[in-house]
């Protein structure tokens, strides 16, 4: 085995707290190390040439680059190996900048630590084998679950790009919650017209199939070729989808969960959603006294909803404005924790509402009592620390967004995870906000957390673009880091089958052993850890590799 170790100075970044000369000298004593060299910038053109030259002239078969974090320049260094006809998976990156030189100033200690980290890389790289990225054929079609604004916008994009789209909606009509809204802030448009516009874009397109009053009853297969069973009013229907976008929206919070609010016992206590639907038919005196309660079903630890629902502050402001516009002499008081007018123009709108005469009281509302003359709100003014008791003619509860009712069903069917608030969880909150942990399954809209209409539409489009990128070519490459089963060791207990999130493990009834569907495997390693006989290994991360690496970190040098 001929290993080349290249230690980067990173200009001054690594060199000033790590003795790079000592390091490169030290590793020369190992018999399987052919080249051990330090260089000012390994990532520079001359640096890359140096690696290529060593590979070609000395015939290196393992390359260790001790430099910055592996996620930086990762693809670039892989290309260097590829250009020299060396399998890119024989490259090992060791982080001696983020993990070493930037951590402390003690040159002695830093050098010692860098030595161990590189040694761990050296031991581990000895077990490396060349791996190939596998090409799989994918179906150019998408299943979109949920026909609200997010689902419709995703469908519009994908169908325009010429992909087959299957849009599934549980209700008899498309449009979700937005269809029922009379006024979308700040556009001032009717929700139905927005939806109709979106549906019109889809109609007449040959590559769009819309299933209303339909639920999903079966979900099998893996990335690129998911086998879906639909339960339509005409009976069962099977189809193949390359990828999935989940856009099942939210369910409005039901204030009955908080009995102290007396919701449902008196028709003078309504939610913002009911206000939106029936604002014109409300029976109110000439000078109505209206109370608006913020954060009903949001930011409330006691009922397990600690999150902010983002849309309800604007809704509350709109109720206040509407009341003031209709009844000039009305008394409108908003009870809030903070006003979070998130979207663009929200803060200005908040000020406008205040100018129109809506009163804002920072308060904790303790309870609502019904009296024959009105509705009495008791609570504490948290700015002045005083308790108050006031009577109103109408109480509007600004309700938040709760997770969709079908969240658990969809999550178990598609084997994806929910976050602690029971919304769908993204693969990474910042870097992969549209992906789920399962390849080819995306989330869009408020099913991944409270969002307003604009955000939901954007989210839907973004997921559609990502899915399009995955499927457009008709084939895709999957990472070579996948599990494989040693059939001689497998006892067929099927424990791994339960642990597999990607449903990639299949049981062979005849041989009584399992095998891994390569295209479906995500390489998470859960099966690997579950197997009591160690019959499963993860390519690129086999057990002895990890053992040796830990050994190198712990052993005495």
């Amino acid at each position, binding site marked *: 085995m001929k290993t080349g170790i290249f230690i980067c100075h990173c200009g001054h970044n690594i060199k000033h707290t790590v003795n790079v000369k000592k390091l490169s000298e030290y590793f020369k004593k190992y018999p399987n190390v052919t080249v051990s060299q330090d260089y000012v910038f390994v990532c520079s053109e001359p640096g890359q040439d140096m690696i290529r030259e060593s590979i070609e002239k000395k015939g290196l078969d393992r390359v260790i680059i001790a430099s910055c974090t592996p996620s930086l320049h990762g693809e670039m260094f892989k290309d260097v190996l590829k250009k020299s006809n060396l399998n890119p998976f024989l490259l090992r990156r060791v982080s001696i900048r983020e993990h070493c030189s930037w951590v402390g100033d003690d040159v002695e200690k830093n050098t010692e630590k860098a030595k161990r980290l590189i040694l761990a890389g050296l031991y581990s790289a000895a077990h490396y084998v060349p791996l190939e990225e596998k090409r799989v054929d994918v179906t150019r079609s998408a299943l979109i679950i949920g026909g609200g604004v997010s689902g419709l916008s995703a469908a519009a994009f994908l169908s325009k790009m010429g992909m087959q789209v299957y849009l599934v909606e549980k209700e008899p009509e498309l449009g979700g919650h937005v269809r029922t809204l009379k006024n979308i802030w700040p556009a001032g448009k009717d929700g139905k017209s927005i939806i109709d516009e979106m549906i019109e874009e889809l109609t007449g397109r040959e590559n769009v199939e819309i299933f209303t009053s339909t639920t999903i009853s079966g979900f099998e297969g893996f990335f690129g070729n998911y086998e879906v069973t639909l339960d339509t009013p005409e009976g069962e229907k099977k189809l193949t989808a390359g990828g999935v976008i989940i856009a099942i929206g939210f369910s409005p919070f039901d204030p009955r969960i908080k009995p102290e609010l007396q919701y449902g016992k008196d028709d003078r206590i309504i939610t913002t959603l009911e206000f939106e639907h029936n604002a014109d038919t409300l029976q109110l005196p000439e000078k109505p006294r209206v109370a608006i309660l913020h954060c009903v079903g949001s930011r409330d630890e006691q009922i397990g909803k600690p999150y902010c629902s983002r849309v309800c502050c604007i809704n509350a402001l709109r109720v206040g404005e509407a009341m003031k516009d209709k009844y000039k002499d009305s008394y409108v008081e908003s009870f809030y924790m903070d006003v979070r007018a998130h979207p663009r123009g929200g803060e200005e709108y908040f000020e406008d509402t205040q100018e129109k005469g809506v009163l804002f009281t920072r308060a904790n509302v303790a309870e609502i009592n019904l009296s024959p003359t009105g509705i009495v709100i008791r609570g504490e003014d948290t700015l002045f620390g005083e308790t108050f008791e006031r009577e109103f003619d109408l109480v509007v509860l600004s309700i938040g967004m709760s997770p969709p009712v079908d969240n658990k069903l969809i999550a178990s069917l598609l084997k994806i*995870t*929910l976050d602690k608030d029971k919304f769908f969880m993204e693969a990474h909150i910042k870097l992969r906000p549209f992906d789920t942990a399962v390849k080819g399954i995306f989330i869009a809209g408020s099913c991944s957390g409270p969002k307003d209409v604009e955000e939901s539409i954007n989210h839907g489009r973004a997921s559609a673009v990502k899915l399009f990128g995955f499927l457009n070519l008709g084939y895709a490459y999957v990472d070579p880091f996948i599990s494989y089963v040693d059939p*001689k*060791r*497998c*006892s*067929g*207990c*099927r*424990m791994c089958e*339960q*642990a597999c999130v990607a449903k990639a493990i299949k049981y062979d009834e005849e041989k*009584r052993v399992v095998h891994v569907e390569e295209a479906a495997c995500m390489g998470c390693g859960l099966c690997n850890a*579950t197997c*009591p*006989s*160690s*019959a499963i290994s993860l390519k690129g991360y086999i*057990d*002895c590799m990890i053992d040796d690496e830990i*050994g190198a970190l*712990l*052993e*005495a040098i």
Partner: protein
Amino acid sequence: MLGKKIKNGNIEDTLNRFLKDDQHLVLGFEKGENGVSLRAFKNYLDHYSLLNPIFSTNGALHLRRLFSKGTKIILMLRPCEIRAYIELIKLNQIEREDIIAVSIDCFGALSSKDKTDDIPAEADQLREYFKKTDTMRWACKVCRERRGVVGDAGIRIDRDGLFWAFSYTEKGDSFLSLIEGEPEESRTEMLMSGSEKQDQFQNDMKTFSKDFAKCTMCMNCRDMCPVCYCIDCVFNGDEYLPKGDALLNKILRSGPVQLPQGKELFHFIRMYHVSQTCVGCGACEEACPQGIPLTKYFKGISERLQGMFSYMSGRSFDESIPYLTFLEDELKNAED
């Protein structure tokens, strides 16, 4: 509960009738010159004994990887053996289709290592015997389920000394239909009612290294454990426990080791593997040539673990092993 009364000798007749078919087998106990032992009967029963007062191995051990169809088998075994059999079914190590599992009320047993000459094999005598002496195996003393209430059917003994057969599943019904007579309501209480409350026993690890210092790594405990089912154990081969040059290499690299090395690791990994399915039969301790109190640890820890999931190994066919069920919301308490 509706059951069938078994008259004297009736059980032998029933099983003999079943064995007339060449493709049928009965796995039960035989009373021979050298005591009672496990035996697979074919064609007819000989010196059959319903109870086995001596514990040597767990009968389920012999059923591991039994997949052939067409041969009908009746198991007439202790509750702990039937429970291990049920766990093996859940782990896909036994094809259940043609097997009827009958658990028999158990009064405890002597260790096969002890003197076993004068032990009776009849129910009432055995009960008296254990009342007089304190020689019962420790695993049996702290047993959680000695009643024949697990498996497809059970044979119970009531306070009048009469034998009853009860069915718990459809397969149990077919077993009951082999017995002569009509089903009737049992009015007398059973000799063993409910599981007896057991004393808390050792489940901490304070004396672990002292107790296991004697271990010679013969791995008999693993081989005799009915639920340790892997075809190829991770401790076979050099991967975990290197020998020869590989060992030398390891010592030179990471310093001296005690030999045989990896004793603790072996028992910990085994404990981790079997703790959810352990039935507490004590076969491991029975197999240990060094007399290490394995039951104390394996039974203690597995019962505590199973308790966390409200699970009891082998209690029913339908309960899934916690290890095999992935629930997102489980063990919330353990998170912090």
